[in-house]
């Protein structure tokens, strides 16, 4: 089928294809907030209320046997 062998696919979005992609992963402990929704703080506030109190113990206790 002709048209399948081109190296660069035809992207049908409005933006230039080489526009900068997502911000690079920030270094540990220095997260950037760019790109996150404006109301993320209120989401975090709610989630604080349901998170397991002792994260380390919770993580250590989550042990699975292998499956498929």
């Amino acid at each position, binding site marked *: *089928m002709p*048209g*399948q*062998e081109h*190296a*660069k*696919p*035809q*992207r*049908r*979005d409005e*933006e230039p*294809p080489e*526009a900068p*992609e*997502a*911000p*690079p*992963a*920030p270094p*540990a*402990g*220095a*997260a*950037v*907030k760019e*790109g*996150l*929704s404006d109301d*993320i*703080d209120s*989401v*975090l506030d*709610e*989630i604080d209320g*349901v*998170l*397991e109190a002792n*994260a*380390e113990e*919770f*993580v*250590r*206790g*989550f*042990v*699975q*046997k*292998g*499956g*498929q």
Partner: protein
Amino acid sequence: MTVRRIMGLETEYGISVPGDPLANPMFLSGQVVSVYAAAHGIRSNQSSWDYAFEDPLRDARGWQIDRQSADPSQLTDLDDPSLANVVLPNGARYYVDHAHPEYSSPEVTLPRDAVRWDRAGDAIALESVRLLAERPGQAPVNLYKNNADGKGQSYGTHENYLMPRRTPFPDIIRHLIPFFVTRQVVCGAGRVGLGVDSRGAGFQVSQRADFFETEVGLETTLKRPIINTRDEPHAVADRYRRLHVIIGDANHLDVASLLKVGTTSLVLGMIEDGHLRGDWSIRRPVAALQAVSHDPTLSAHVELADGRTMTALDVQWMYLEAARSWLDARGDDPEPEATAEVMELWEDVLGRLGRDVMTCSGLLDWVTKLELLEGYRSRDGLAWDDHRLAAIDIQWADVRPEKGLVHRLRDRGRTRDLIDPEAIREARETPPEDTRAWFRGTCVKRFSGQVFSASWDSVVFDVPGRTSLQRVPILEPERGTRAQVGSLLEESEDVVALLHGLATPED
């Protein structure tokens, strides 16, 4: 020319008792399944699954391995009296697979229905957890829809796609590997930790990528292959193969889940039709799979066999463009709206990922999870090896609405849902109408006392007054639909009448 095909999703749920990491997961999984079965009046014992046609050691490449040389974990058809294994009224199988409760959805034909009956499985898992919690003296059992424990273990979410037997398996391998290496940017579920035991700090796109070791193989629990060759069609073997896909992640978000099955079905259609003629083979695909997963910026490049290098997103665009030309060339789609929905969402999501990954929050699991984690990192200055981030990753997948973080985001309207909650509730009890699941599930619902056992391709009745069991094969996945047998099932007062009706030639 269509997204339509017989397909289904299987989910092995993570299981744990808070504060008791040594609790026996096989016993607990058996409790999860049997408490649900008991509450719904469904028989639950070792003979309720009919294993007669199961053949897990048959290989799609054409040989069969010797049972004695198989690892015990590959022997999935052995009876074990301690393990519950039932067919549900919605046509699904709910059972204990290794050390996890597994829900295998009924056969559906459209991606939306795959999502719907998969979400019904989550609702069934939740109900099982609730029922156990109500038992006096019972330690609470929690279920998690994820695929890794961060200690080195993984458990699967599998997809099944029916394909014509005539499609050469080497074509499937060649064209699917590049697709599977790269589709995680759409349907990955995201994971905190790098490496099978999360010893590296960081976030990656996929739950499963680190657990794959080879390109093609029969195993599912060790040396996991990108293409699994288990050849157990659960249908007329001369006509069909069931492609058993083990490389996917468990999805919570409807858009990601729809695209996982929808785009895969389209790619299989192109392979079947001979539409993919180029060679997009990726060099060292297992390493590429992991490199793509380990780069949430999506800038990692893979190298094609012909020397080109491109991102995972570029490869996905190639498949999307090929699908468009395939669909444009053929006007015979029986489900044009379902196909158009998948194509539009696929293009929308790839466009968003190219512009700004975070614009896929609420659409894709890994991005939605990453946004939440980055929110915590930003607010509290957490490093990627902080236990709180690992805890969020696990709690993300808790099936309970009050604890599961996906549920919390959904309740705040932060996810784009495709399936109406009422449709999910109904799908717990009701089979899809357009496959043999209608016959299977409705038999379980209507004639529970006389269904001796059932499986993907049979229903076996214990008929009052008959000495031998009556087995009804259902080897054609599109036979046994509501249109075909709905009125017979409704009108039959009992199993005798049903069997008589089935044996009577149609008009």
